[in-house]
């Protein structure tokens, strides 16, 4: 027989449980996350401001944040910033959506059926390694320098990568999920529609988010070479007139637009896939 031992009196906690920030893959409060993110963005801005305000830089080559901000204002009011943003966003979105329109089904087939994979993947892999930028002269020869050339360059830059990433996302769908459907008598098309696609959706959205970022890179390349409008073109023109503040403004604006798009994708993911969080 074991006698019950009296439990020790509960003691008042002398010190709160220690919380360390340096836990591997640890959790962090929302406030701390926002605070750190803001600090990470503001700190370089402060350094930049202090450096230029102290007169350490030649404003001709490196304007301060105040000058850049003033330039953004003037660009907006007098130099048609909205139109520049509009045409750039339009080009990125057209190229990117066109890319997605073809890459999604193609990647789905490559990732699902071995023969398609064996047939198309090496070719896609090969083209992917050809620098999209090097296609620009060819594109200009073939389609000239109208809107479609910019869209085409973005398409070439993102499409082949996207196909391979989509195929990989589809291949990552656990075999157990597919086999479970098979043992319930699902047909091939039902498995694709009811298992593979829904299962891969979060990964696919992530792929779109990442390739959308690349689309912006190729947009600027296209506009630097073959355009007379848009943010990339504005940056190039600013160089000709030694408007360093406008170059800075253009680069930062593209960064801001990219960041916003990225956040929009993440938000969409959280809203569309509530089952991902515990």
């Amino acid at each position, binding site marked *: 027989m074991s006698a019950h031992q009296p439990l020790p009196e509960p003691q008042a906690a002398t010190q709160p449980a220690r919380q360390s920030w340096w836990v591997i893959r640890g959790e962090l409060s929302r406030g701390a996350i926002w605070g750190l993110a803001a600090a990470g963005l503001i700190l370089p801005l402060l350094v930049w401001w202090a450096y230029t305000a102290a007169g350490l830089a030649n404003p001709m080559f490196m304007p301060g944040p105040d000058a850049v901000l003033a330039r953004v204002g003037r660009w907006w009011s007098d130099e048609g910033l909205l139109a520049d943003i509009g045409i750039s966003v339009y080009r990125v979105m057209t190229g990117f959506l066109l890319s997605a329109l073809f890459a999604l089904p193609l990647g789905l087939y490559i990732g699902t059926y071995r023969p398609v994979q064996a047939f198309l993947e090496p070719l896609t892999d090969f083209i992917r390694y050809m620098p999209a930028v090097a296609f620009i002269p060819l594109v200009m020869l073939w389609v000239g320098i109208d809107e479609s050339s910019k869209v085409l360059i973005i398409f070439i830059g993102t499409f082949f990568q996207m196909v391979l990433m989509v195929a990989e996302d589809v291949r990552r769908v*656990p075999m*157990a999920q597919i*086999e*479970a459907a098979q*043992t*319930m008598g699902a047909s091939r098309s039902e498995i694709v529609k009811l298992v593979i696609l829904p299962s891969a959706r979060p990964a696919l959205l992530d792929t779109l988010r990442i390739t959308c970022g690349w689309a912006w890179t190729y947009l600027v390349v296209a506009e630097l070479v073959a355009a007379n409008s848009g943010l990339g073109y504005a940056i190039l023109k600013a160089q000709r007139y030694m408007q360093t503040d406008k170059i800075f403004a253009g680069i930062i604006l593209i960064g801001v637009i990219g960041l916003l798009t990225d956040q929009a994708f993440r938000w969409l993911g959280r809203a569309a*896939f509530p*089952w991902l969080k515990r």
Partner: protein
Amino acid sequence: MAVENSSGAKIRIRQVSKVFKTRNREVQALQDINLDIQRNEFITFVGASGCGKSTLLRSIGGLEQHSRGEILLDGRAVTGPGIDRAMVFQHYSLYPWLNVMQNIKFCRQLKVVSDTVKTDGDIEVASGRADALLNLMGLSAFHQAYPNQLSGGMQQRVAIARALMPKPEILLMDEPFGALDAQTREVMHDLIRHVHRLEKSTILFVTHDVEEAIYLGGRVVLMAPRPGRIDTIYDVPLPAERNQDMKLSAEFLTLKREILARIRETSGMSTDLELLEQLTRTQPAAL
């Protein structure tokens, strides 16, 4: 062994062999397997790792193509997976984007199933079945939860309910409780026996836990590796109605000891033990 009258067998396995060919070698996963399984039988499979238990189960399920021999269900050869055979895997194969109820009802979106459901009455029956399974599994409070909000035992219960939904005649279970703790496992054992009685299904159950195999099975098939084959088939000397106390009975323990000893003999582990003894004997001298 126990089955003489094989003409009425639900599943007949005749001379089934399976060879896996990988780049530089061939693995004889199954060799000349012969086995008859009766309707409404609960048969369990044990054996050393790699003896082909999963391969056999997957072949019956139609997920794996056997190289030779034939598997007959009610006299018809297996050519692929089908709605008459449900499978429960060790690793949770639930659909994380569907909640518990949607997972259980998954098969109703499939053409093979929806074709059988035509009238409003059929739909009502099907819905009733989903609710009944949810209750049977003790999950009614969680019908809207997503799989990753459930414990491992609950997830596996959802997987079983989903497998049972289309009223399969045969239930194939491959170490379904392998990842669960001992207490949850006991609960699941009684649950699955209850299901077996209720649904009159034929259950093939693979495990590496001999106690589990004896407690659940009417027969225990012991398989041996390299090449994968059936070594011995044991009849379990326990009444059809089981309870946890029987695990302490003399018959149970004797059979358990016998099977464990046989697994050790067939697994090639004994030679490993000899090697180990040799090592420990020679070590002081070597040092």
